[in-house]
């Protein structure tokens, strides 16, 4: 998967001639409501293939109806991602349908923003309201002044609507608040991103190195399945984590690293491999650029030096470096996913990329495969209007390597300052910005400057509480969405199709986008009658039958080689066309061309570093009200080292509050005193402590790490917001 750089994006869109006239205020249509599916209440069992939406992995699934009622969801055996087995969230997918806290009908704000007082309106009234504001914003500020925050494939039709409207500002917190540094670090090194699903060949690896990556708790289905396969085959597993994770329990080596020092360990590992000449010399001479300068610089990093920083014994550093080299190129130093930790995250990710390059694992079996997708042409829409202004997220290229995707916090910043130009409207699709972005106060401050804030979601998320208009979306089991053509080790196309009717007045996102387009006079951008016609048009262009796909759920592309050794093309879209051990473009921009270590602040006496992660039964802050998943985990716990708990006189199960360095105090959270964590940090699962009063079942259950993340460091290369930099004390009186 090649990411399109920002520059390329602008060039492409600038070259198209705008043929679409914008008819503001025109095109008033009366919205009658989507036609009901009218699925017969068929007796017995019906099986309908679709793909899961409990997270972004998009596993192929089969929904079961029993006598016309939704019964269960299983994996689709034809699907290469799930191989017939969903993760616990996917298995709990029916709970999304039955969730009693779901949004039921469109809402317009009655009182002040954030007070969660609403008037129930018709879809037509909601669209009328939104279109009126959007037209006013367009007239006064230009169409660029409406921005979209979107997470997941469901946002595709709304993205299309906003591009048709004329805005270039479209972002997902999954970049600057999550995997962005990793993508940029790898792109700088190999000329390509890791992508999603990750191109990690865990299944065939002989040595797997996980740095803070908690597979098994982090339930990316394919990766967990492959992880178990690697365990079964006896792969050597090395886990680096301040917390004894589930994966650590499976490891041959567990390295309990001091938080903030991972880069020192990576440099020391590379030092050992270079000094002992354990690298893949053929691979490097064939594909590498700047290796000599790199080797000279990293050979100065010793295990003894790294020991002082990381607390990992020098002998273990040497032993694990040799272990990785023993299995090369089938050694996978996993790039992780949520990489926004300390502020030098792109350089740390680049160091991971370089370690893999030394081991020759990129493009090789047991390392990183070369993914491919089923190539299905886009819908032949009319060209978008010419963009007159650049996106606001990164003025004057302040973060020179923020390529490909936009910085959500940059858009928030522009909304606060009005620079480089004002942002007056926010569309938010499927992402709870209250938990996704650091420093809640800044988000609330930005919201105060908006003339329009629209949230489209299935549940009344915390951010929905701040909206002017809330649009209730159908859950995935009730709707069509765009085709899934994720790049993977096998190319395939997957379909999401409705299984059951919406219980209330919810609507699918394609319908929402189309109807709003009609109100805005942009109906020529939505020439299809419905999603089925849209999908059929796309599939026909690729010679695929919609009926066939609706029956199987998955159709595979012709096979292709996925390893260099099998003929996959070894292409590196870097300036040198090679794997860049030394990066001229980084040097020219004034950054370290080879990663260097920076010391990060450690918690002062009495404070603990706040770390957070995932539970296998929840996705972000999206699934807490799902009755099946809530039944598995209804609140989070505060992990704290047993000795420290004893010293502080706090008991297991007792409720405490956390107070961060800025005086922010959390909701009460249960203590889990455990031998599974270092003494200098505490840990909780992300996504709890929700403040939306409409989410009755989960309101203030547990504590929110996001609320305590008032401080963040910004990655100077790409604008990522590093969030593992908050320190807390524990207040035992509750």
């Amino acid at each position: 998967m090649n990411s399109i750089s920002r520059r390329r994006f602008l060039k492409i869109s600038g070259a198209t001639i705008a043929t679409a006239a914008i008819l503001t205020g025109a095109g008033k249509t009366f919205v009658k409501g989507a036609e009901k599916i009218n699925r017969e209440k068929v007796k017995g069992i019906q099986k309908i293939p679709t793909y899961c939406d409990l997270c972004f992995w998009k596993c192929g699934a089969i929904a079961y109806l029993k006598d016309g009622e939704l019964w269960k969801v299983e994996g689709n055996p034809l699907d290469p991602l799930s191989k017939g087995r969903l993760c616990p969230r996917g298995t709990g997918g029916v709970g999304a349908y039955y969730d009693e806290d779901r949004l039921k009908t469109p809402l317009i704000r009655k009182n002040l923003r954030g007070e969660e007082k609403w008037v129930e309106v018709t879809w037509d009234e909601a669209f009328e309201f939104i279109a009126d504001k959007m037209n006013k914003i367009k007239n006064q500020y230009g169409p660029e002044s409406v921005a979209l925050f979107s997470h997941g494939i469901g946002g595709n039709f709304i993205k299309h609507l906003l591009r048709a409207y004329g805005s270039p500002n479209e972002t997902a917190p999954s970049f600057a608040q999550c995997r962005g540094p990793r993508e940029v670090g790898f792109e700088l090194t190999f000329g390509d991103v890791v992508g999603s699903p990750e191109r990690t060949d865990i299944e065939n690896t002989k040595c797997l190195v996980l740095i803070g990556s908690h597979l098994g708790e982090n339930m990316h289905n394919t990766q967990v399945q492959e992880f178990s396969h690697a365990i079964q085959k006896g792969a050597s597993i090395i886990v680096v984590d301040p917390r004894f994770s589930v994966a650590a329990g499976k490891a041959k080596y567990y390295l309990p690293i001091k938080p903030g020092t991972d880069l020192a360990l990576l440099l020391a590992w590379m030092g050992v491999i270079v000094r002992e000449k354990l690298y893949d010399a053929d691979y490097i001479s064939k594909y590498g650029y700047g290796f000599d300068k790199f080797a000279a610089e990293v050979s100065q990093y010793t295990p003894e030096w790294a020991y002082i920083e990381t607390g990992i014994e020098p002998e273990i550093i040497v032993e694990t470096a040799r272990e990785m080299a023993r299995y090369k190129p089938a050694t996978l130093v996993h790039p992780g996913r949520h990489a926004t930790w300390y502020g030098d995250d792109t350089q740390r990710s680049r160091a991971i990329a370089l370690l893999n390059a030394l081991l020759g694992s990129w493009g090789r079996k047991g390392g990183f495969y070369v993914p491919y997708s089923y190539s299905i042409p886009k819908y032949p829409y009319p060209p978008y209007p010419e963009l007159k202004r650049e996106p606001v997220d990164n003025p004057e290229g302040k973060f020179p390597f923020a390529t490909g995707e936009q910085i959500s916090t940059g858009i928030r910043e522009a909304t606060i300052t009005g620079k480089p130009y004002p942002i007056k409207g926010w569309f938010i699709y499927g992402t709870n910005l209250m938990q996704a972005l650091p420093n809640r106060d800044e988000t609330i401050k930005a919201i105060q400057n908006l003339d329009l804030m629209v949230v489209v979601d299935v549940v009344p998320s915390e951010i929905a509480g701040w909206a002017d208009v809330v649009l209730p979306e159908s859950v995935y089991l009730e709707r069509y969405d765009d085709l899934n053509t994720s790049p993977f080790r096998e190319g395939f196309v997957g379909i999401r199709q409705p299984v059951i009717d919406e219980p209330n007045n919810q609507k699918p996102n394609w319908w929402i986008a189309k109807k709003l387009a009609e109100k805005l006079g942009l109906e020529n951008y939505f020439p299809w009658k419905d999603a089925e016609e849209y999908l059929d048009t796309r599939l026909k262009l690729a010679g695929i039958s919609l009926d066939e796909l609706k029956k199987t759920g998955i159709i595979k592309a012709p096979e292709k080689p996925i390893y260099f050794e099998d003929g996959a093309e070894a292409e590196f879209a870097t300036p040198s066309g090679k794997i860049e051990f030394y990066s001229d473009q980084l040097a020219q921009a004034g950054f370290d061309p080879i990663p260097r270590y920076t010391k990060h602040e450690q918690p002062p006496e009495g404070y603990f570093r706040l770390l957070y992660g995932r539970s296998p039964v929840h996705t972000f802050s999206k699934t807490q009200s799902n009755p099946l998943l809530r039944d598995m985990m209804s609140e989070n716990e505060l992990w704290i080292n047993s000795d420290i708990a004893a010293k502080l006189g706090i008991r297991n199960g007792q409720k405490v509050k956390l107070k961060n360095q800025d005086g922010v105090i959390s909701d009460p959270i249960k203590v889990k005193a455990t031998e599974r964590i270092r003494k200098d940090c505490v840990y909780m699962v992300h996504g709890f402590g929700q403040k939306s009063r409409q989410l009755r079942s989960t309101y203030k259950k547990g504590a929110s790490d996001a609320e305590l993340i008032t401080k963040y460091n910004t990655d100077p290369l790409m604008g990522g917001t590093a969030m593992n930099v908050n320190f807390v004390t524990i207040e035992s009186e509750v």
Partner: protein
Amino acid sequence: MPRYGMVIDTKKCVGCQDCVVACKTENNIPEGYNRDWIVTEVKGKFPTVQMEIRTERCNHCSNTPCVSCCPTGASHIHEFGGIVLVDHEMCIGCKACVEACPYDARYIHPDGYADKCTFCIHRVEKGQNPACVEVCPTHCMYFGDLDDPNSEVSKLLQSRKWHVNLPDAGTEPNIFYLI
């Protein structure tokens, strides 16, 4: 007749609870109740920690205190593969079996009867695996005939080290944990 049992590889289980969720949807278990659950056992002192993660449920024991204590005969060993079951119609909800089970595998269903894992007999009769076995993303659970020396479960027990829960309770459990 086969003797059905499970062999569970604790080296692969990640404790994700997928088996619990799948059991709940497959068998329509009401909110707040479950037939299977996860136990995480931690030993040692940080950072030298050993951990075992286990998915647990009724052990479908060969020597069953829950059956012998039942006053109505509702709790019984089914002839099909030695699966331990409760006849919901006959059960009076007296809780004797709930108390008698040393594994705490039974609960009283809101509809008034004792309920527990059925080894998904409705699936096994059709030649399918139990729902929890079939869903597990780590493929760590194996179901089959322990009396057949050529079954996958028997072979695993011959080739790997294992333990059972509460071996001293005299229950002769039919769920085995590979270590």
